[in-house]
């Protein structure tokens, strides 16, 4: 008995070695591990890079919570910035601000933490490396402030690490002016350019030239905003006395000059316009796909093996190509409208006498087309992933009349009565005088379905589409071609626009000439036309101001070159023309018909089938400072105009 008791007691004592409640946290790193060595800093910056406001394949500009972090992000193809601003055509999205209360002060705090604490680790680095990393931090901060400035105008400029538990008054930072906001971006980037290295070996990482490229873009934005905001007629304190929404036109030249200067820095770098392939159309398409493109200044890379929540894989191919021939997912979601095709050099579709031009083959529309346009869009007869595009809307039994008789596709036009104009679904055939014809092309345009996987025009988008991916692998989340954040072509266009705004017209067109030569345009350097106009090209918009026709040409050149790269919407905003260009904007589409009695094809200019119109209001120029933030901090008032 006694023995047992002793055993039990001993056992209990053995077990009673108390559990320690101070457990070592698993998976946590301290600041010295991150700031104390270069790889640690890269790791620290990785999340900051990841969240940069880069409007890439995944940017979901119309979704209130998921613009930069969409949950169901393959739908981005439908809800992209291009679809929203009219640049692409689809059935889905209406014009809106992105309006998602972008407020990335958490990331700005991460950068500020680095800038504040990094000097403690100065001894761990050589001066070059130390300066480089500190410069990189300033670049990153400028990028976030750019994301804020282009949406809100003036925002609070927080440059140090605030203690959230400090008295609330110190946290209630007021808004700064829009001028100061753009100036902070200028200062940060200037610091970055001065301190960062010229080494461009590491793609996906900022260097001196990347900072200069961002400076070029931001300063062009700032210059245009300063120059053209006056025409908006905004009233209210924010726009006027406080200077938070808009800048004095006298500041414009200062910013345009910064833009030109930044462009010079980039030009000094090892970049050149992409010119590897003699086929200028293919060359233009390859520019976006070639990882070794000398034109890319800064890219964002993707990989299909990355975890889904990192936003580092995308579905672009699956959403731009028709299924099942070239995509194994839902099929294409966006198509180029005629309004944008017309910017390029393309064959006439209407004869001088008003009758439609007859083509022997549908693909003849590509004859005489600007190579850059063919590098941007796929047309009938083009090949992708071993299949040939086949696009036709329908059949006219005969078309004895003017193009205008078709009344832009209206079913009310006599020539379009159902006995003469035959429309149908996929694979439908019709018999005319004993001959059986397919009514539509294999990839559209089908009357019995919506815009999904149904080419509602005569072209698919080619820019950024990767032809090397096998169709079986063209699926959601299976694309990983990189996004070109900055490329030399854009910098040239920035510089050209800024130079023209500064009055250096000929010098501006030197850059335009380089762009157009590479594009394969027939007229690389148009004659400068200083007569002024207030009519824009798209939608024949009435601008609230007049500009020289050659400046409009530069603006159009920008869209020709940068089509589908998510610049258009921001350009319309900074030019202050969005509410006019997108004023009851009804897409026109290019529709191909077979004329049965002639055995020829015609292309007609039609209104989009669902008669959708796009309209942007004047509110789009400035988004409202998030109301929730104003609730917490009244110093953010005055609110932006029209809210």
């Amino acid at each position, binding site marked *: 008995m006694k023995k047992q008791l002793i055993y039990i007691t001993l*056992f209990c004592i053995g077990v009673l070695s108390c559990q320690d409640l101070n457990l070592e946290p698993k998976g946590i*790193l301290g600041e010295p591990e991150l700031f104390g060595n270069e790889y640690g800093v890269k790791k620290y910056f990785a999340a900051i890079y990841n*969240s940069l406001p880069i409007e890439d394949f995944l940017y979901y500009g119309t979704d209130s919570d998921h613009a930069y972090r969409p949950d169901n992000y393959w739908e981005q193809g439908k809800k992209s910035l291009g679809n929203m601003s009219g640049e692409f055509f689809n059935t889905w999205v209406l014009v809106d601000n992105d309006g998602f209360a972008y407020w990335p002060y958490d990331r700005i705090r991460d950068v500020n933490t680095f800038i504040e604490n990094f000097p403690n680790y100065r001894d761990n680095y050589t001066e070059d490396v130390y300066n480089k990393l500190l410069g990189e931090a300033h670049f990153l901060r400028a990028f976030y402030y750019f994301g804020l400035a282009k949406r809100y105008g003036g925002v609070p400029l927080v440059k140090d690490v605030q203690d959230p538990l400090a008295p609330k008054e110190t946290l*209630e930072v007021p808004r700064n002016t829009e001028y100061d906001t753009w100036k902070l971006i200028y200062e940060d980037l200037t610091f970055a350019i001065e301190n960062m290295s010229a080494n461009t070996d590491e793609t996906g990482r900022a260097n001196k030239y990347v900072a200069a490229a961002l400076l070029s873009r931001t300063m062009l934005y700032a210059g245009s905003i300063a120059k053209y905001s006056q025409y908006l007629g905004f009233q209210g304190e924010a726009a006027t006395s406080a200077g938070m929404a808009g800048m004095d036109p006298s500041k414009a030249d200062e910013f345009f000059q910064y833009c030109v200067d930044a462009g010079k820095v980039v030009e000094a770098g090892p970049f050149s316009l992409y010119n590897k392939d003699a086929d200028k159309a293919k060359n233009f398409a390859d520019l976006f796909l070639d990882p070794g493109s000398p034109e890319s200044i800064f890219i964002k890379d993707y990989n299909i093996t990355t975890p889904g929540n990192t936003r580092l894989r995308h579905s672009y191919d699956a959403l731009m190509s028709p299924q099942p021939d070239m995509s194994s997912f839902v099929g294409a979601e966006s198509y180029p409208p005629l309004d944008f095709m017309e910017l390029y050099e393309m064959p006439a579709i209407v004869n001088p006498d008003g009758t439609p031009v007859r083509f022997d083959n549908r693909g003849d529309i590509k004859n005489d087309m600007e190579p850059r346009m063919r590098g941007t869009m796929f047309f009938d007869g083009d090949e992708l992933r071993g299949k040939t595009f086949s696009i036709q809307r329908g059949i006219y039994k005969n078309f004895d009349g003017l193009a205008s008789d078709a009344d832009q596709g209206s079913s009310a036009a006599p020539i379009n009565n159902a006995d003469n104009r035959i429309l149908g679904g996929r694979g439908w055939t019709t018999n005319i005088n004993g001959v059986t014809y397919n009514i539509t092309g294999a990839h559209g345009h089908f009357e019995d379905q919506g815009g999904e996987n149904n080419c509602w025009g005569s072209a698919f988008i080619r820019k950024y589409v990767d032809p090397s991916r096998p169709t079986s692998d063209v699926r959601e989340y299976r694309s990983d071609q990189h996004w070109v954040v900055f490329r030399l072509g854009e910098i040239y266009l920035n510089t050209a626009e800024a130079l023209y705004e500064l009055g250096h017209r000929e010098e501006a067109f030197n850059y335009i000439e380089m762009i157009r030569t590479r594009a394969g345009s027939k007229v690389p350097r148009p004659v400068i036309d200083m007569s002024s106009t207030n009519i824009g090209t798209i939608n024949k918009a009435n601008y609230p101001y007049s500009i020289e026709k050659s400046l409009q040409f530069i603006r159009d050149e920008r869209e020709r070159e940068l089509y589908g790269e998510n610049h258009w919407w921001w350009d319309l905003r900074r030019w202050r023309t969005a509410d006019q260009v997108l004023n009851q904007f009804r897409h026109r589409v290019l529709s191909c018909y077979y004329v049965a009695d002639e055995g020829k094809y015609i292309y007609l200019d039609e209104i989009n089938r669902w008669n959708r119109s796009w309209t942007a209001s004047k509110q789009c120029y400035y988004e409202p400072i998030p109301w929730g933030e104003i609730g917490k901090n009244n110093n953010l008032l005055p609110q932006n105009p029209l809210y």
Partner: protein
Amino acid sequence: MFLLFSLAWCPVASAQRTLVRLPQAASQSRIKHSEAQQRDLFSTVDNVSIQVPGSTRNEVGAETSHNNVGDNNTLVAAHQGRDITGKVTDEDGSGLPGVSVLIEGTTIGTVTDADGKFAINIPSDESVLVFSFIGYTTQRVTVGALSTVDVSLVADVTKLNEVVVMGYGTQKKATLTGAISVIDNKDIVRTKNENVLNSLTGKLPGVRIVQKSAAPGAYDTQIDIRGMGDPLFVIDGIVRDKDFFSRMSSEEVESVTILKDGSAAVYGLRSANGVVVVTTKKGIANPDGKVDVTLNSSTSWQQFLYVPKSVSAADYMTLRNEQNWQDFGKNYFVRTNPMFTDAQIEEYRNGTKTSYDWFDQVFKKTTPQSQTDLSINGGSDKIRYFFNLGYSKQDGSYKSGDYYSSRWNMRTNIDAQITKRLSARISLGAIMVNTHQPNGTGWSTYKLTWLTRPDAPFYANDNPEYPNGDAQLLNEGANMIVQTNSDYVGYNITDDRKYNGTLTLEYDIPGIEGLSAKGIYDYSPNTPVITSYKRAYELYRYNPDADTYSPIARNTPSGVTKTFFLNYSTNMQLGLHYIHSFFNDHNVNSFLIYEERYNSTDNYSLYRDLMVDSEYLSAGEDLHQLATQGTSGQVFDRATQSLIGQLNYDFRGKYLFDFKFRYDGSSRFPAGSRFGFFPAFSAGWRLSEEGFIKNSLTFLSNLKVRGSYGKMADDGGLRINYPPAIGYSLNGNEYGWFYDGVLTGGVSNTGIPNYNLTWYSANTYNAGLDFGFLDQKLTGSVDIYKRDRSGLLETSAAVIPGTAGATLPEENLNKDRQFGYEIALRYDNTFKDIKYYVSGQVSATKNMRTSWLETPAGNSYDRWRNRTSGRYSDIWWGNESQTQLTSYDQIQNYQIPLGQNTLPGDWVLNDWNQDGVINDADQHPIASVGRPVFNYGISLGGTWKGIDLALDFQGAWGVYVQYAEVLTEALPFGGQNTLSYFTDRWRPVDPNADYFNPNTQWVAGYYPVTGHDGRRTGTNGVQNASYMRLKTAQIGYTLPSAWLSKIKMKNLRFYVSTYNLLTFTGLKNTDPERPTAGTGDAYIEFYNYPVNKTYTIGATVKF
């Protein structure tokens, strides 16, 4: 309302009083199993103590305070008088072994043998024999001239003497002072369901259980106690979780105790939402040394509840055209073409073409389910054992047969009396659940099937070699016949494996009566493995113009992911228990326990592409292979240390006091705020034991008032696993960047630490009344309660400007309150040989935010509309649906501007604030949202000559929900198929009429014009989801023992049982049990796998 309700069934109960009392099934309660209950015997029979077979050291300890009782099982008798013999039987006439037979006023007595026979020497003819046995009403017989005394004991339904398993100990029900509900095995197993939680539904007051899905292997059932959130589960003294309990076999559960008030405080941290205490069956020693072998086997047929079907092709096309015509924007300038021509529709009308019924092609109407348990129970006074082996299998609704789940349960409980003072218990459990599911299905299976267009062929060109994959016809290109078939798409197999091994040693400390030491050690690994095999396959599109099939690659490339979880927990308890009665009046039940818990969780996942048609990881490719581990949120360990104490005292079972405390420390909090003290007090007064009631109010057999207060806590809502620290979490799953093409995983800062962080605490108050009338025929209890929680975790993001940019720490900021009442009543009676019962319970709970940190309101309207502090949290804000417009005239002359798209049949919302515009500013409270106003359950049953019948109803009243997506919108998601009830809609007489022409004639319907949504907005959208459901209906027949003994069987019972047989509800189209249970959420779940109705036949055989 609830009073009306509870009164409503009282007359039912009295009306049935004329029914006859049925004998209780003989085998059920002949011997109660737990030693604790046996201990209870001694306090029931005044002043005497008897040793019965199978009793253990506790009784030995207790009995030493009495005289004349030997250590063996034999009687102690006087030496004069005469000998009496007799037999004690139960209501079926079977002999009852182990019944104590005492001569009143003495300590002389005996116990019956295995056949129920006894012999005793009585001093005189005036002697009164007292027959008592647990679970049976004590009987007194004056011997008189009899030489043979045969007695039939009647089962005791009062349950007052039952012992309840509480936290770290047991207590007599009669002297309970907390709000506690108990259910035992018999009441659990009559509901036949794979999930033991579902077998409790409606049977426990204050406990709300809703089954959200009957998906095989999902065990998707929610439980809350008094509306308080997820409770803590304690199984045989060890903290486990809901997942563990729900997968136990109901045959191995002895009883379930719900601790609802301060009595839960003995579980300290994590007890704030109440505690579910589960006890498994233990071995019992049969006096004759025989072994009980019980085989329980049942087979069920499942049908699925509330699965609406979609329309056929002609209706689909018609509705689609209507949807197109109503679009004002599309038809304003030039009318667009119809989606489908009359000729196309006509083909389906006249039978040239037939619709495809996808739903019937994908789902079965009836699928089987089976459950078998074998248990062995027996032992001697030295060693007792209980073994259970259970197997159950449930098939899913997919016609492919590829959705199913099977489960093995094993439990071994062995009690050994090692020496006179040292006893041990070994408890081993294993639960293995294997669930097989086609890859890539899940919540969207029903959705996609409903949405599949009826003109989409199953196979391209109806050629069965080519499953159709035409994206034009199929939502997201999904062919649901293929997608539910593992042969095409691959599979997900979840192997869930839960084990536990528990060793308990108990030592009777010599020298001090009633003092014992007890040590428990438990080790429980839980190591699920999930294999997800994604197989590439091809669907086809038929090209009629070329008579070819275009392949559509899906699921490419094939790949396999294997995910391993490595979780385990340990628990150690060392304690001293002291149970003693002083002078027979002062009863003390106390303990002091030291407890430690540790648990660790880890996981990793491996992936490879498969280029060969194989399903094994080893066959995969090196390129793109991935090995990942969960980040800091998923890999962690935690520990707690606690000191637990109880002091329970009662004076003659009349005045009851109880004090419990727990001193708890958790590794999740900073060292400074790590430990907390959680006391609970309760007291009760059994008025019915007082002379003034006992003598004058004889109809009152029991009356007890009680009250309790307890402070509890919970660390469950914490986002962090470790105390706050400045640092950076590796966060490669969220953030990463490619530097020079190489992925670098990012970090995210851990935020500003709050070094004062601690658990939230809850102060729980409860007052209750237990009563019994008419010899305990009518019993019941009433409880009211309130719980105030403070220090609820929230960040101050609502008030700190976002420009600070900091990830704000959680702070103990908010306060809320739950309060409500519960009423439970039960009526038992016997009429001739019919024994019957009616019981019911109703409970209500309400929740409010007493103090809530919010962004300051901008103005008084903002305050009224958008702030929640100081309000009930179940307010549903919305517009009121005012009028249905029935003519163009009405639209044109409506005083308030209407949208240009308005058509006859549309609803207008009212201008509640009368500002001349209908908008969001007209929203005001229109219903309650979230939990029901009250829940109730009604059980009735009876027995008659071997036949037994039981009905369990369960319901909720005052619960409102809103339909969403396919349930409320015709042709959702851009014109996919729609549910059939949307055909009852407004439409023009001429299908091709211009909708906006004022001369168009209309046909009225329930829904507005297809494409308009007047039935889902405003009060029209509020659906009353109150319901009552017949959860269980069971009828059984037990064969007479006389027949069975001939074939050496102890018991044989056949039964037919149904689950969810009837549902009474106003809610259409979806199951009322499926509303999301969270507060503030009005939407219902309707895509996930439905709830089932089952018909079961089964038998229980005992050898």
